[in-house]
């Protein structure tokens, strides 16, 4: 199960809406070992694509360095699907290399109703988990 504060959910959805119709991507970080998704960090989609995303490498290097210095780690990796459901694509599964992360997908295909779901992806196996929204 993944617990997210309402404001974290709102920030992810707002980012996805802003970048629509391109895919938006980012992370939610928290203290090392806590599994608490506390702070949203928007990342640049280097591919600026409607169907793919990749963290911009130089930005990622800088952001991850700051996480290390603050004793924080990546708890959630999120990205949007802009024309399909919030479920990991084959490409998502192939690239998922962080078994400890919650992979959050948000779909912006419906302009009025954003769909947000969370998954674990371990050894190419996708397992959906419940998202509890607090606050």
């Amino acid at each position: 199960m993944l617990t997210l504060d309402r404001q974290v959910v709102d920030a992810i959805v707002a980012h996805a809406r802003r970048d629509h119709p391109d895919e938006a991507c980012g992370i939610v970080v928290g203290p090392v070992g806590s599994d608490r998704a506390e702070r949203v960090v928007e990342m640049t989609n280097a591919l600026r694509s409607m169907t793919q995303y990749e963290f911009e490498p130089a930005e990622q290097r800088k952001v991850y360095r700051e996480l290390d210095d603050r004793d924080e780690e990546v708890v959630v990796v999120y990205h949007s699907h802009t024309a399909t459901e919030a479920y990991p694509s084959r490409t998502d599964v192939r690239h998922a290399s962080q078994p400890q992360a919650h992979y959050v997908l948000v779909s912006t295909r419906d302009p009025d109703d954003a769909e947000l779901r969370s998954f674990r992806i371990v050894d190419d196996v996708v397992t959906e988990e419940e998202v509890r929204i607090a606050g």
Partner: protein
Amino acid sequence: MAIDVRIPTILRQYTGGAKQVEAKGDSLGALIDDLDATHPGLKGRLVTDEGTLHRFVNVYVNDEDVRFTGALDTTLSDGDEVTILPAVAGG
């Protein structure tokens, strides 16, 4: 010759939890061999059976992405800093 290597969270199981370790080598490939000697298993997470860098990792020497500087053949000098990060991508 001492090179500082920044280890990402997902690989710290090989370094006893250390964020940063020191290693030796005059190329990235040699450095990874040296890392694997002190932290067995690390090389397998970085280099494929075909001997190329794994697609799941991005490696930097100082500010330079090694994909543009010769990958495992990238030369290293005393005082360089190597950063290993997970590549984050999807569709």
